[in-house]
């Protein structure tokens, strides 16, 4: 049992019933410690997205147990009454595309989450600027998302994911649209943030460029996870 990380035991998810039932997840077991970044890889249709949706409290698993940040959120049924608040306060999401809100500037895109959690505008913006500075995009704080490069947008989306200081971040193909240099830059940032804030991060990826950077990788095939040690290459020397 990890305090502050992710623990998944015997997670199952079946879509449909009877003859048409499809078992997307059959027996998923994972642990991610606080401050750790692990990779989740697998072919299309293997269940990656289903696992991410279960972890993100978007869809309900069929069976199993999930612990996020030391709190049991699922154990044969949801243990948290308000999943919306759980998603807002305990899980950060980074998507394949940044999906920033186009009508908010960079600062407010990041500050929106704390504001939704009831933090005052001034405090939320101060926290957003702090994160943007840490991610080296503070100079674009007043810009609109459409004025940013792809790499900058992805860094802003990482800042947004960190804005409520969640114990868990789920990243779905965060480097897919980026070139090699920018993809490694994003991974560098995720690793820094994981260590600084002791956040457990799962990165779903197909990206061959970043797979060697993980120390631990979970392969998912036909709804089952297999853990394997990664190369864990240092990001400092890679380009």
């Amino acid at each position, binding site marked *: 049992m990890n305090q502050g990380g992710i623990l998944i035991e015997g997670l199952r998810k079946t879509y449909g019933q009877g003859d048409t039932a499809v078992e997307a997840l059959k027996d998923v077991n994972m642990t991610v410690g606080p401050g750790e970044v692990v990779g989740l890889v697998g072919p299309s249709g293997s269940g*990656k*997205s*289903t696992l*991410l*949706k279960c972890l*993100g409290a*978007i*869809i309900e698993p069929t069976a199993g147990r999930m612990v996020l940040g030391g709190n049991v959120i699922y154990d044969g049924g949801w243990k948290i009454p308000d999943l*919306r*608040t759980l*998603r*807002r*306060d305990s899980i950060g*999401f980074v*998507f*394949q595309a940044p*999906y920033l*809100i*186009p*009508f*908010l500037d960079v600062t*407010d895109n990041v*500050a*929106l*989450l704390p*504001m*939704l*959690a009831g933090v005052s*505008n001034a405090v939320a913006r101060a926290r957003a600027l702090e994160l943007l500075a840490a991610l080296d995009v503070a100079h674009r704080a007043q810009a*609109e998302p459409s004025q940013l490069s792809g790499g900058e947008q992805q860094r802003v989306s990482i800042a*947004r994911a960190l804005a409520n200081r969640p114990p868990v971040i789920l990243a*779905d193909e965060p480097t897919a649209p980026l070139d090699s240099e920018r993809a490694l830059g994003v991974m560098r940032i995720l690793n820094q943030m994981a260590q600084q804030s002791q956040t457990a991060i799962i990165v779903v990826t197909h990206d061959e460029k970043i797979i060697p950077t993980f120390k631990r990788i979970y392969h998912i095939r036909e709804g089952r996870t297999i853990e394997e040690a990664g190369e864990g290459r240092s990001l400092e020397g890679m380009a």
Partner: protein
Amino acid sequence: MISLAGRDILHAWQKFVFTGLGLGLLIGVTLSMAGVYRGMVDDAQALLSNSGADLWVVQKDTQGPYAESSSIKDDLVRSVLGMPGVARAANVTYFTMQVQQGKDEVRAMVVGIEPGQPGGPGYLVAGRHLTRSHYEAVADVKTGFLLGDRIRIRRHDYEVVGLTQRMVSSGGDPMVFISLKDAQEAQFLKDNDAILNDRVRTAANPAFNRPGTPGLLDALQATQTSSHNVNAILVQVQDGLLPQQVAEPIRRWKHLQVFTREGMEDILVAKLIATSAKQIGMFLVILAIVSAAIVAFIIYTMTLGKIREIAVLKLIGTRNSTIAGMILQQALGLGVIGFVVGKLAATLWAPVFPKFVLLQQGDALTGFGVTMLICALASTLAIRAALRVDPAEAIGG
């Protein structure tokens, strides 16, 4: 908490302004339609107010002189003057005709009055009242005539000696006042050829041209070339008396129809323009439905364009009420822009209308309320679509 709706509107202000402009023109048409109806009612009330009468005495079993034709003899006014409670009474004639004004024609209501008596123009904006018995006219400025201009009415020319304002018929046609004698001749007398033909026809009739009664034919011919008919008698009652009290004896003893101000208003507003009011009402309903459909379509389309953003907002924990509020506020914002544009447009183009368009503040307030209600209702479709968005759409897979 920042206003998501406000930020979205500011971000895409051109879209909102142009959409609001289009919606505004529609709202402007709607407000103008209401103004047209109000103008019709006001025209009818102006006609009654300007006549200065408390009672309208007309032909029995008619609802004249405005809604139906009415013809009574002009000497009846003397017996009406003798009735208890009558302070003043005057004959009046009304007929509508096309009057040549320069190269154009103007539709005008020609009113025959006894100068200084009820029925005449209350005040003038230029010139003087009628003083001569013949061939002078006082015209409403809306006819386009100026002082000194000549108006051709039937066989005679009349010089414009005075100008008045807001003196219109119940249909909104401007009035031209001439003396009663001139009006009786213009309204009831036939042209010279017709008179000549009638004389020949009468002389050829042995019943009217008897050798034994030499004066009969001349007396009969004389009646055909003079008119002593009027359309109504306007009555002012003595101070302290109710019009209804004075009307009843006239109705009973003179065998004439008498209307009070309320009765005449009922005829003009509730009966004469009832069909037009229904017509306008139908237009207002259709315009309201069209406006609602347009707002619903626009807001729905705008919401569909933001499905991914909405999915992200839901995924990161935004309440449904916040998302619904954003869409509702945008719909209301669109309504506010549309209403401001519509009110401005209606105010600007109302004076250009050929007939009086009366834009009332009360109607504008009602219009604003209805616009907001329509926008709120129209946004429900988009809100429903937004609330059905699955947060999982942000993740894909």
